[in-house]
């Protein structure tokens, strides 16, 4: 797709990310020295595990986007695959769904990313919502088991939409043709992922420092009004300050960051509700300190498609 983009802006962003990680690691180290009680030591230990995982995730992400389109496609394709695996593991399906699940993992998921890779917007934007959506119940009905049919089909359709379709809109940003912004789309992907993840992190930090009133105690006890307000406000500020890497004006950049942060927050809540219903705390244990892949990308799932469509509608 795009040629390797090791330009000045991306190098500056990479330096910024690594600086942030060094800063976080130092803070984590100081907190560990200062923590006395059993409970605070536990929180700090989890924080440090998260920071270590962030190092790895950030470096993988930076390498992927610096390597141009193919690296991002492979990274997000694999992310979708692993997220779908965690989601389906947690979702009760029946024997009769085995074949359709095989299709979901080994045909539909790769095809979606191939369509993104060849920039066939007309098909990748409807492939899962129309074709895969219809294939799922058809393949299941051929298997001949009608028990819980609607629920079973819906679970698989949801999994494909959330884990594959929505996530695939992140690398799809690379295919947008924005006048005056040629060969810089990788920065747009950085903007989305950066704002979404920083918003998550800042909501966590504000929540841990000032959190009093839970927003949805039954669904996500760690999300508080203070964390939400502080995290989203800071994410918008950071998004605004990053306007120079986007095709947006500063106020447009602020608005985009606000939408990304809000959608991200909603994504986190919705995906938490599924976990609560299944009686688990995390989707998996792949990323130490964070839980599963799905726990890390739940906010991206909801933010990516909206960000893509707004950018496509207003700027191309």
């Amino acid at each position, binding site marked *: 797709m795009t040629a390797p983009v090791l330009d000045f802006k991306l190098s500056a962003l990479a330096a910024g990310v690594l600086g942030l990680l060094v800063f976080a690691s130092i803070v984590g180290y100081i907190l560990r020295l200062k923590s006395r009680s059993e409970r605070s030591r536990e929180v700090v230990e989890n924080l440090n595990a998260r920071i270590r995982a962030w190092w790895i995730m950030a470096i993988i992400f930076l390498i992927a986007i610096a390597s141009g389109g193919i690296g991002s496609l492979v990274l997000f394709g694999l992310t979708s695959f692993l997220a779908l*695996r965690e989601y*389906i*593991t947690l979702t009760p399906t029946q*024997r009769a769904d*085995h074949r359709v*699940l*095989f299709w979901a993992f080994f045909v539909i998921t790769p095809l979606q990313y191939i369509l993104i890779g060849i920039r066939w917007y007309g098909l990748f934007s409807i492939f899962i919502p129309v074709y895969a959506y219809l294939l799922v119940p058809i393949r299941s009905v051929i298997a001949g088991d009608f028990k819980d049919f609607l629920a079973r089909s819906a679970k698989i359709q949801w999994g494909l939409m959330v884990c594959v379709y929505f996530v695939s809109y992140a690398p799809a940003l690379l295919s947008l043709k924005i006048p005056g912004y040629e060969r810089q789309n990788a920065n747009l992907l950085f903007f989305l992922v950066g704002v979404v993840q920083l918003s998550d992190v800042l909501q966590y930090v504000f929540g841990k420092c000032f959190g009093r009133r839970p927003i949805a105690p039954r669904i996500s006890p760690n999300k508080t009004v203070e964390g939400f307000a502080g995290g989203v406000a800071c994410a918008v500020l950071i998004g605004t300050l990053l306007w120079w890497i986007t095709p947006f004006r500063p106020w447009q950049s602020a608005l985009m960051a606000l939408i990304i942060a809000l959608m991200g927050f909603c994504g986190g809540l919705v995906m938490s509700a599924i976990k609560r219903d299944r009686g688990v705390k995390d989707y*998996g*244990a792949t990323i130490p300190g964070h839980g599963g892949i799905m726990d890390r990308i739940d906010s991206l799932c909801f933010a990516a498609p909206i960000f893509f469509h707004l950018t496509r509608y207003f700027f191309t």
Partner: protein
Amino acid sequence: MIAEFLAVSVRIFSGVQARWLGCSPDATQRIYFANHTSNLDFLVLWSVLPDEARRKTRPVAASDYWRGGRLRFFLANSVFRGILIERKKVTRSNNPMDQLIPILLAGESLIIFPEGGRTTEPEMRPFKSGLYYLGRAAPSVDLVPVYIDNASRVLPKGEFLPIPLLCSVNFGAPMRLLPAESKHGFLARARAAVEACSRV
């Protein structure tokens, strides 16, 4: 070499998570006995054992299946070092216990599936009596109950293409045959121990 490579591949593909709840992952001589719902059961259980333990652990498998092809037989014989036993026409001359007990006495660990075959029901079948005879023949060897979760969704009985869901393997607390415990009582207790490993 092949065995270690295969074990790593299985761990990656099945994303299997081992939970050592009642004992530690070491090379102590044991008889691991587990529920059986999929052909993958033994592979995932075998793959999560520490390398050192795996080298001295031998799965007990059905002779009729594993002698069914050259590749299968090579895998069973040379890679997994399986003990192939007759499960259909057991007579006095091919009694599986005659194969298993010398191996136990030689200090090796075993993996067995006492239900005697794969089930498609959510409930386990009653256990066959082999576990009891092994416990009686080697009373100082720990019997470790194991519950394998989700392997039946990865590869259900009757399917040949696996899907990459996450499995888990729960190891329970070791048990032994009590003095004067009846065969029936022991097998029921062993089955309940596997069931208990599923509820964590």
